[in-house]
């Protein structure tokens, strides 16, 4: 029961409290770039979740069994970037061959994920928080879902912004960034919620 509690706490924490986009400000580029339409936002969210899970599944063993054993913890960032980039490329080739329809709908977003710092952030934070393999996977699932949640919420906010009458100078990116800061403030309301939930 305790493990379940821990995992649930990790999942909820990474979705709501430590939301990567809105609390840690990682992965802002796709957050602003692909949140114009709901279906695109969902597509990007699914792709990021998938890549986060895959990246964690590969980087965690490499950190534990290769880097730690050789005393190369300081090479973490470079090795992880290398692995994530290659992984995304591999996923793209794989999808193109076996699931062309999915490749067509995700195709645009996959290269964007290669340099998405949220993915790198998840893998590094998993190591930093000294999670086990299972906990790491749950945490990356939560982070991916949190990313998707932020994207979906913000696509709704953006469609409202597009329809509203705002001063000329605020149109476009300024209004979007201000709105993003409000959404981010709203997420600060989750502070402490999860800790008390499982206390």
């Amino acid at each position: 029961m305790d493990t379940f509690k821990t995992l649930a706490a990790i999942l909820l924490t990474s979705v709501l409290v430590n939301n990567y986009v809105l609390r840690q400000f990682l992965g802002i580029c796709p957050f602003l770039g692909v949140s114009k339409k709901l279906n695109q936002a969902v597509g990007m969210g699914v792709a990021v979740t998938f890549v986060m899970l895959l990246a964690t599944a590969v980087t965690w063993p490499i950190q534990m069994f290769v880097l730690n054993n050789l005393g190369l913890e300081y090479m973490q960032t470079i090795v992880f970037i290398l692995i994530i980039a290659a992984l995304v490329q591999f996923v793209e080739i794989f999808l193109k061959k076996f699931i062309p329809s999915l490749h067509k709908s995700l195709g645009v977003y996959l290269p964007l994920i290669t340099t998405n710092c949220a993915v790198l952030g998840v893998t590094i934070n998993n190591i930093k928080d000294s999670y086990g393999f299972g906990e790491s996977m749950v945490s990356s699932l939560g982070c991916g879902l949190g990313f998707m949640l932020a994207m979906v919420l913000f696509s709704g906010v953006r469609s409202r912004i597009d329809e509203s009458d705002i001063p000329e100078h605020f149109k476009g990116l300024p209004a979007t960034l201000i709105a993003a800061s409000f959404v981010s403030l709203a997420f600060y309301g989750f502070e402490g919620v999860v800790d008390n939930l499982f206390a």
Partner: protein
Amino acid sequence: MDINAILIALGVVAGVGLVMGIVLALASKFFAVDEDEKVLLVREALPGANCGACGYTGCDGYAEAVAKGEAEPNLCIPGGSSTAAQLSIILGVKIQELEPKVAFVACGGDCEAAKSNAIYDGIKSCKAASMVYGGPFDCAYSCVGCGDCASVCPVNAICVHDGLAHIDPRECVGCGKCVGTCPKHIIKLLPKDTKTAVMCSNIQKGAVARTNCKNACIGCKKCELNCPEKAITVIDNLARIDYDKCTGCRLCEENCPTKCLKPIDFMNNKIG
């Protein structure tokens, strides 16, 4: 700190890079997808307006269907016969002629002729306006004039003035998007060499149609009786022209009591 630490770090990064490189190289070899050259050729020959007149999702979708042999090469309306000829050459099949078409608003009910029963002051959309008691005009088959057709036109060939949509036949590519958008279903695709057209879509009885709009077709059958080619038939109180038979003799126009039969010259933008 000795040289070994550096070498080990170097070796690990190089090793990871090498393994990943080999995996990617193998993957790109084994999972390679053959892209059909024909698709690319066909796609380049198409105009790229993505108008959807061919019935596919866009030029890409149509190119794929043509290359696979699932679609005829003469469906691209904006490209016309020159594109059809190019596609036929790429595919190595016989050229099929494509009859160029032009969209035409079959309504003569401008602000003066059509009787209005209300002033519509809602969302500027024909679809919305026609939901309110069938539109702002007495005639249920009248152009609403809010310009839904103009907003979907990919080449900006439609403008609305005097409460009636006007399509510039020289700009129109005949994609038929407006035809599907019009909530009154009064836009029709006519052959580009059309000489006479009925500028009305009202199928109510003559007396009712006439009260609602001065320019309405009242279904009097004068045109049907006078046509030497038997090209006109009145069905449901509305004259309909068979363009395979019409020679453009203009006898029907002269005999039409409400002058809803209009001379047409699409090439020179003369309608009515």
